[in-house]
């Protein structure tokens, strides 16, 4: 598989504290990659560096052979859904979705926009104000608004953490099928191991600004490369499994 995005030796300090320490990894075209790690490990910072919002102190970002390191955010052509969605409350759902349309020639055509709206099942909610939408609906509106700009890479910061149970699963599937159907390279920040393992092709585990392990879900589960991965990722899943086993009995274990 060809690599679309390469990060080389990325480091970042805030107020003399090392937040990201020598991060290097590569992402293939159309892959879904999760950035997994505990709170404060530097996931959002790394995502913002890829986006171009935060400047890194050292390192290089290569996209399709060209060096993006000094390319400003807007010229990179990536887009993000923020954790709190950052929807514009003065506009209704539809106007939020098409907000970027008039600004870019490369943005989605009217048919494509309709396609996104239908795919995300937003038709009945288009005229609603942002305040009238549920969490899951807001999430989908924000996703649609971002997709309309036809981003070269889609970045999602904790897209599921504000959602509960059933909605979480359905959004998860949608994100997966969007990435597959539109061949969209997607980077997702999460702190939930189960989420990371079930949604992604590759997982980058970060702890205290360093890479703990980078690999496919299978690899991580079967060959945890160090104590941290074993203790914090695999252990959690075992506890979950134990809980379910206690509730339902043998056949679920």
């Amino acid at each position, binding site marked *: 598989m060809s690599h679309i995005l390469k990060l080389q030796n990325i480091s970042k300090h805030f107020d003399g504290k090392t937040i990201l320490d020598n991060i290097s990894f590569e992402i293939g075209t159309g892959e879904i990659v999760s950035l997994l790690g505990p709170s404060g490990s530097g996931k959002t910072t790394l995502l913002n560096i890829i*986006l171009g*919002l935060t400047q890194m102190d050292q390192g290089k970002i290569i996209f399709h052979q060209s060096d993006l390191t000094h390319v*400003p*955010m*807007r010229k990179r052509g*990536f*887009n*993000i859904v*923020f954790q*709190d969605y*950052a929807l*514009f*409350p*003065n*506009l209704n759902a539809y106007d939020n979705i098409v*907000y*970027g349309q*008039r*600004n*870019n020639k490369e*943005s989605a055509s009217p048919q494509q926009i309709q396609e996104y709206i239908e795919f995300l099942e937003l038709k009945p909610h288009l005229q609603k104000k942002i305040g009238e939408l549920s969490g899951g609906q807001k999430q989908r509106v924000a996703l649609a*608004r*971002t997709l309309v*700009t036809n981003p070269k890479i889609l970045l999602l910061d904790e897209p599921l953490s504000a959602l509960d149970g059933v909605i979480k699963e359905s959004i998860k599937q949608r994100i997966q099928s969007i990435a597959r159907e539109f061949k969209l390279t997607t980077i997702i920040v999460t702190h939930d191991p189960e989420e990371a393992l079930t949604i992604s092709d590759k997982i980058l585990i970060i702890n205290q600004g360093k890479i703990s392990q980078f690999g496919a879900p299978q690899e991580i589960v079967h060959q945890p490369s160090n104590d941290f991965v074993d203790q914090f990722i695999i252990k959690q899943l075992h506890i979950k499994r134990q809980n379910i086993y206690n509730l339902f009995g043998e056949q679920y274990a």
Partner: protein
Amino acid sequence: MPNVKPEMRVIFVVILSLFAAFLFLPLLILFARSFEDEQGISIANYMSIWSDRNMIEASFNSLKVSAAAAFISTILGFMLAYAIHCTNMYRPLKSVLKTAIVVPMLLPTITYGFAIIYSLGNQGLLTKLAGRSLFDIYGFNGLLIGYVIYTLPSAFLLLHNAFQSVDKKFIIVSKLMGDGTLRSFANTILRPLIGTLGGAFVLSFILSFTDFGIPASLGGAYPVVATQLYQVMLGSIPDFNQGAVIAVLMLVPAMFGIWLLKRLERLNFHYDKLADTELPRHRIRDAAFGFISIATVLGMLSVFAVMFIAPWLTAFPYDLTFTLKHVISTFQSSDLTRVYVNSLFVALLTALFGTLIAYSAAILNVRTSLMGRSALDIVSMISNTVPGMVLGISYLLLFNGSSLKGTFAILVICNMMHFFTTPYLMAKNALSRMNPSWETTGELLGDSWFNTVWRVILPNSASTVIEMASYFFINAMVTVSGIIFLVSAQTSVVASKIKELQHFGKFNEIFVISLLIFFTNLIIKLLCDYLQKRRTVN
């Protein structure tokens, strides 16, 4: 926060240059002038000022009457706020009181003095009703009443806001813990509010100390610093260097006061979360505070009552027959109508440009990562410290020879600089509470920064923008102290015209144009309230 864009830098530089030219430079000139005399640079002016017995007396009077007024305003403001927040008083009555208490803010302070004369003077309305002269109003008493009326709304608003963020659940908790009434009051009300109480006192003191309108109309035999300053600058023998010294001396308590306000803020409590709490029932408390607050507001309004009555009577208080002649003659006087139009013009321009500058400054300060953006907070603090009279005199000294002299522009600029702080803080407050990612989102969706501000930031803070404009407008309409030094025959505005009419004893005209200011402000206020309501409902 979005990355810094060149256009942000441009606006930043423009705003800072404005303040450099129209706030720092004039103040600098003022300082320089205060040290200048025939021999060159010296502190002779500062020495000679104290050889003037009047000046010593005036300083002492100012301190005394301002402190007394601040004390009374703080107590009354507290009782009113307490009545509104901590009693089970009839709800509609609470909102009436809340509205009525701020009525004086719609009038120039110079009007207060005349209202007091016509209410409490020897022939005054309230004196007649009482059947005898209550006390001598020309001097300490009159000034005290005027200052209290002037500062009570501000003190009340400050305390009212603070009360809003006091968690009343603790009143219940304290009761459950077995605290007595006094102890409970001290712990749950006084302690959380102690900083604000101090703040209300300091604010009232500064306002009184630096006000010109009230002593201008009432002072006479009782010299205060503000009237001394006016005498020295625009009296029969103007002495600009002496004036500069007095202005600097007026700045000192103001500076000290602002510093004190900052210190007092630290005493304030911050509760995490406020729950709506049912207050314990207490008949006597409710009745007592109901009575005190109604009496306070009625007393205050009764002083102004005469203003609404006198212009319709032939020769108040001697001939009480109804007539329209004063009103008609006022409106027929092309002079007065022109002055009114001038005022509207200045107030509208102040509202427009003032809001633009304050809003832009607030955006740069809280929604960008621009280097040096905290300079705007310093600018705001300085602008807040400088009393109107001091600013006016600095302008007089700096721009007297320039083409700005006697223009509308200088009035508008003076107002913008003088009233900058409050709207700036309003905007900062609103803007900092909005989602910090909007600009970045807009940029990722292809907007320029201006575009996102126009399409997203502005619509989401429209209600605040309206409030800012209304603040600038109303204050520009009523201000006397700064512009009194800057108006010319062509640019005369209502508030300064009143001073002139006083000279000719034309009191009916004074009341008619005061009413004109009042109703103009009332309309603007109601209109803005209505627009704000509509925005928040949507």
